[in-house]
């Protein structure tokens, strides 16, 4: 082969190589864009709807890009007495749930991972089983029990029922974290004169702070998002939480989509940020630690 032939050969080959690579790249980005559109378009639509004037929303020729922007819907939604009221109800229920969950779960996780007594492994397994039981299975009997003890239409009563799914979730997560902390530190503290319980409060708890913070935030979001129990156990409209209150607009005849989307944006932005920032821990928690990323 002459050097010219070698050269032309190389050019041909590398041309084919680059063409192939370019096509592959283009297909990859196309797939990525289709996926991004599928995942994110509803959010785009929620945000833009909340910012567009009514005449645009209900016009015959809706455009994909907003022509005009307004904060009017936010103003309407936020100045409504009920929205603020529901917001504070949701905050009360979610905070109470988070605090009670942390108190109960930390004690339980410490008991199961650090103390030895008969029945411990059965208890550990039953925590996992309770986490797996869906709450929709038990809401009718829980409703009759709640009304018998007069806890219907009571925000703290609602928070109490939420513990049935936040406690197993957080206990299991904390158990996984406690197991990664070596025993030596607690043993050293006990040699220095701490009681068993003090070694828990003074050594283990401060070390487990990241996991405890994560558990608190997740039980808060679980309670914030919950719909079925809030719908069944709270009938007084002054005590409704945000999910039930907002969606009750949809059951009425006239849908005010602008303010509804404005309310949805306000109810979901903090939660979405938390989920995205902490996704690794949360996914592991939902898989009950069976898969480590």
């Amino acid at each position: 082969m002459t050097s010219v032939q070698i050269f032309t050969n190389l050019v041909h080959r590398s041309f084919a190589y680059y063409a192939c690579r370019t096509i592959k790249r283009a297909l990859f980005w196309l797939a990525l864009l289709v996926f991004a559109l599928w995942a994110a378009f509803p959010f785009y639509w929620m945000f833009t709807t909340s910012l567009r004037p009514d005449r645009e929303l209900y016009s015959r020729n809706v455009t994909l890009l907003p022509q005009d922007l307004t904060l009017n819907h936010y103003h309407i939604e936020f100045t409504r007495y009920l929205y603020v009221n529901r917001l504070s109800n949701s905050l009360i229920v979610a905070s109470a749930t988070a605090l009670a969950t942390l108190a109960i779960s930390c004690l339980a996780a410490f008991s199961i991972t650090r103390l030895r007594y008969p029945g411990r492994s059965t208890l550990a397994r039953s925590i996992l089983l309770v986490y797996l039981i869906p709450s929709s299975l038990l809401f009718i009997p829980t409703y009759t029990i709640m009304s018998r003890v007069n806890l219907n239409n009571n925000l703290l009563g609602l928070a109490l029922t939420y513990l049935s799914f936040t406690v197993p979730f957080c206990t299991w997560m904390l158990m996984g974290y406690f197991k990664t902390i070596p025993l030596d530190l607690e043993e050293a503290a006990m040699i220095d004169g701490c009681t068993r319980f003090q070694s828990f409060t003074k050594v283990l708890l401060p070390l487990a702070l990241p996991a405890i913070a994560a558990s608190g935030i997740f039980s808060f979001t679980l309670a914030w998002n919950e719909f079925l129990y809030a719908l069944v156990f709270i009938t007084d409209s002054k005590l409704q939480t945000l999910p039930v209150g907002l969606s009750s607009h949809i059951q009425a005849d006239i849908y005010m989509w602008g303010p509804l989307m404005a309310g949805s944006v306000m109810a979901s932005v903090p939660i979405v940020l938390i989920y995205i920032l902490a996704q690794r821990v949360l996914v592991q928690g939902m898989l009950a630690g069976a898969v480590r990323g």
Partner: protein
Amino acid sequence: MGGERRLGYLLILPTVLLFGGLVAFPFLSAIWLSVTDRVVGSGGNFVGLANYLWLLRWPDLGLMIFNTWFIATVGVALKFVVGMCAALLLNVSFRGRTFFRGLFMLPWAVPTFVAVLVWRWMYDHHSGVFNTVLMRLGITEHRLSFLGNPDLALLSVIVFVVWKGFPFFGLSYLAGMQSIPNELYEAAKVDGANAWQQFFYITLPGLQHVIAITCLLSLIWTANAFEMVYLLTGGGPSNRTQVFTVLTYQLGIVNLRLGEAAAVPLMFFPMLAGLIVVVSRYMLRNQ
């Protein structure tokens, strides 16, 4: 070490009381309720299996059972496929990956009730964006009633279920892919395996465990989903999207017939209990 034992029981006591009061006792009282004629405010006499027989005679029972499992199985199958594709795309390293990963997570991160409200609006008959786009592109001549048309409603619900659920699958598989050693892929490349072969002989077997757990978990969650169906269609039109959770709500809370309402979930309990036991075995395997 009597002290350690006593402390152990003392600290686990709140959890045990909670599970007793909010799980075990409600479960037992559900069984009792389902054999009584209890309505809100009165009743409570033993009626044997009358509630179950009443349900069996209900003409739409088969439809309801079919819908519940159809949404769950088809939904999970599609979530698996879409989630796996998303994970494979995001496992490639490219500029802007973190941004796209954030975008893909959005449906999972948003509260379900917000997601349903947004989709209700997009599905809307008069001003919904789906109808606008379909009409503008000339695909349909008339506005479609996505949630009101008996032939479309179930499909519309499933599309929503897949959208809401696929990121959890994707994130789980992405996490699982990190734990597959890179040497396997390098060895396969040396042996001349193409991308498909690498996927079927390395990636899929490596993810076996995660796939089993995500699919089983999601099957339980989807079969028990409430607000997705309740807020999208309310079970309609004429029970074409009716599922057991919404039926339970309508019987027990709307019609105040607690006996029949308690019987509905119990009919599904054996199947769900089986799934729960199987998935818990999988989850405990690595502990």
